[in-house]
């Protein structure tokens, strides 16, 4: 941990990843840059992308079934890819998790709105015929 001039302060030592000791031997010239996708260096340093798990759970259990489950899949993908050092993939899954959480929230609201309209019209119709 020596001469990375403009880098943030050295991170805490990563967990040992296999026999070789993880970051013990930095790649030549590479230093602490983002690890290559799928590289075997364990979780990268820095702020992980959000996995939007909270919205996935909310939409699954309190809103609208199928899309919420898709959001859970992408949330889990964010963690898997981040833990594997795949920074770009983790960010991509994070975006997808966010998109699907929004889709399920919007679809949920629209369906409930339409349903309310149908129920209201049905109620009015049955009232007028009764």
């Amino acid at each position, binding site marked *: 941990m020596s001469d990375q001039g403009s880098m*943030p*302060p*050295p*991170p*805490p030592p*990563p*967990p040992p990843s296999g026999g070789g000791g993880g970051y013990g031997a930095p790649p030549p010239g590479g230093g602490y840059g983002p690890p290559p996708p799928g590289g075997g260096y*364990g*979780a990268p*340093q*820095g*702020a*992980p*992308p*959000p*996995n939007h*798990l*909270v919205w996935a*759970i*909310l939409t*699954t*259990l*309190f*809103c*609208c*079934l199928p899309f*919420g*489950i898709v959001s*859970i*899949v992408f*949330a*889990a993908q*964010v*963690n*898997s890819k*981040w*833990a594997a050092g795949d920074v770009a993939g*983790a960010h991509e899954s994070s975006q997808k998790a966010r998109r699907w959480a929004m889709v399920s929230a919007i679809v949920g609201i629209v*369906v*409930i709105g339409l*349903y*309310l309209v149908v*129920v209201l019209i049905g109620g009015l119709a049955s009232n007028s015929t009764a």
Partner: protein
Amino acid sequence: MSLVQHLPASRLRPRRREVLPTAAVTAAAAGAATVLATVDPNQAGHYPGCPFLLVSGLYCPGCGSLRAVHDLMHADIADALARNPLAVVAVPFLLCALGAAWARALGRRPPSTTSVPAPVLWGVLVVVLAFGVLRNVPGWSWLSPA
């Protein structure tokens, strides 16, 4: 596991952009909980029925969560568990998440859900799917919302 990421210098600077959305979510959650506490979802006609249940006749993983929240607001945990055990388990998690959102908005660095080991989240997925199937299976009626 990288539960502790290195902290940036701006650790305690509040993020004003996040305060308003977090306050809005908090207000919405409090409002929904209040409505659910006062307008009883056990009474037919208070809320529209679930379209998914109407169309398919099946209980989805979210079925019974309105009644469960109503029971929780009245401190009736046994009834809440009978309506939707997964929703009851989710509520403390969601409250923690709300607390974490406030901590983040006020400039702290609470642990992120991305720090959770990935197998835990895959486990959540399996549990939700299995719950959604089993609560429709005869013999597993303790999971059904009825």
